[in-house]
């Protein structure tokens, strides 16, 4: 067999786009700070309650004891419950709600967006009108209605948050699918005999993922904020502690002992900030335009 002369000696090591993205992420200071914070928060949520077993619902001391006094690092709330314990237990609930609401969002959003973007035509028209219907609903009001009607259990709150916020993911997925669908390697896969489902999930989806990942990461943050909003309004499961709920229950005493509101507020702020920093870092790392050079 005649062979063509070889061009470059094969010196390069195989580097997947993913490992290059990590390389980029690793050199992004603010993203790494965000990731560090996030890891700390997740560790605190997992191990905090084990190392600091005080029950968050126990009245352990006089109400409104300021932070640091009487051995209570963050003080006590209006019922004399340990704030540190509440924050640690609340971290679990808050993060779980944030994460699972984001998952609901992504599952609905990616499915709708992928079908619309891949098939186009009537399918797309119908699905996008459907999406727009959810987009124009007043989000807070709609989720309040759901929670008020079906009860304030954790799954229902998660579902309520997910159902009002998936539209952004659907739109991004659709536009990414439309972009990638037109690229020649999709046609090449078709010429190689790939079925529609293979094209959608094995060829297009992995290449459409970067902006979806970024959006989903930010979704976790906004779901946490959303949950805080609902809890603040009292629409929450009274049997669990979440950061929003701590703020909500102490809100009447905001002027006298502001720390009971500020501390959970700070926790939310730092968590959402960390998520945003990571999301921004992901955006830079996964954006091929920025990666070159």
């Amino acid at each position, binding site marked *: 067999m005649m062979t063509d*002369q070889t*061009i*470059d000696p094969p010196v390069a090591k195989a580097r997947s786009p993913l490992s290059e993205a990590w390389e980029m992420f690793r050199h992004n200071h603010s993203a790494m700070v965000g990731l560090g914070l996030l890891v700390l928060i997740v560790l605190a949520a997992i191990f905090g309650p084990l190392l600091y077993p005080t029950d968050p619902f126990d009245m352990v001391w006089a109400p409104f004891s300021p932070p640091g006094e009487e051995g209570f690092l963050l003080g006590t709330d209006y019922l004399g419950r340990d704030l540190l314990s509440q924050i640690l237990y609340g971290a679990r609930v808050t993060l779980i709600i944030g994460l699972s609401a984001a998952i609901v969002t992504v599952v609905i959003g990616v499915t709708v967006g992928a079908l619309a973007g891949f098939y186009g035509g009537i399918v797309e028209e119908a699905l996008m009108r459907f999406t727009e219907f959810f987009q124009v609903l007043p989000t807070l009001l709609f989720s309040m209605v759901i929670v008020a009607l079906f009860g304030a259990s954790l799954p229902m709150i998660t579902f309520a948050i997910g159902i009002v916020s998936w539209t952004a993911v659907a739109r991004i997925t659709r536009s990414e699918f439309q972009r990638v669908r037109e690229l020649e390697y999709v046609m090449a896969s078709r010429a190689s005999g790939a079925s529609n489902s293979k094209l959608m999930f094995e060829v297009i989806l992995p290449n459409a993922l970067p902006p979806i990942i970024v959006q989903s990461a930010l979704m976790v943050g906004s779901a946490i904020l959303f949950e805080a909003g609902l809890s603040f309004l009292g629409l929450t499961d009274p049997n669990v502690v979440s950061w929003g709920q701590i703020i909500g229950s102490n809100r009447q005493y905001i002027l006298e002992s502001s720390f009971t509101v500020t501390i959970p507020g700070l926790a939310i702020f730092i968590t959402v900030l960390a998520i945003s920093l990571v999301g921004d870092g992901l955006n830079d790392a996964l954006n091929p335009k920025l990666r070159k*050079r």
Partner: protein
Amino acid sequence: MAPLLKVENLRIELATRAGVAPVIDNLNLELGHGESISFVGESGCGKSMTALAIMGLLPEGIGRVASGSIQFDGEELTTASPRRLREIRGNEISMIFQEPMTSLNPVYTVGEQIAEVLRAHQGLSQKAAWKQAIELLNAVQIPNPKSRMESYPFQMSGGQRQRVMIAIALACTPKILIADEPTTALDVTVQAQIFDLLRDLRAQTGTSIIMITHDMGAVAEMSERMIVMYAGRKAEEGPVDQVIARARHPYTHGLISCVPHIVANLTEERQDLTEVPGIVPGLSEFGQDLCLFSSRCPRVTDQCRQARPPEAHFGNSRISACWHAEEL
């Protein structure tokens, strides 16, 4: 007469992740009044970078003129103030690009865009600018220029958009027009129209043209002189027909013979195309003291790998930077 543009020992450095690389390495060139020259080479050889340096448009913070000079009409451009450079751009040196769609603003009509340039650079009144814009559209041979003034870029074909770009570039009767691959995105019959237009306009206005291209045919159609660039350095320079007839640098020879050119009387016989193996080296390899083409060159000897070849001068102001130029 002194040359209109004189570039001497120009060195442009580009900051990359791996360090500083000389994208333009000791370049000399001259452009006479009314002359048309071409920069030829593959992508990544520094053709466009040279043009951007002349325009004072090097990517900020990344590229800079490290040494050398660019003299335009006796005026030093490398040390000119940003304000002065802005005056020169558009007024005295203008540029047209490869992709006429992205170079036009989609939300304004072409008339508004041409008139805007005239008002900004020549201080014309609204009405006078509009009138002159119609004349310019007429000059670039757009049919019904009056009604075309109201068209948006997307309503025009690629060829017409490139005509509009040329109209904008010529609005202030520049002394130099730099055309960076002006027809690469266009069909061949439209390319022929654009070349004819540029030739006519040059004859009428006496504008000097620098064309950047990789197409030897286009060079032959458009220019008197060409500069072949490779990896940031000048490989060869000379009158177009002479260089094409007998290239004195293996790279030039490769560029000409690797392309299947249209032949007048075609025969059954078909030979393999001459290959130039490999690709242009990456920026990190620029600036070494050797012939950067040596890795792809069929005539390479040890000498080529040990020292950068000097520019050998021949008759008819021909230059070749090759250790073996004498033999070619």
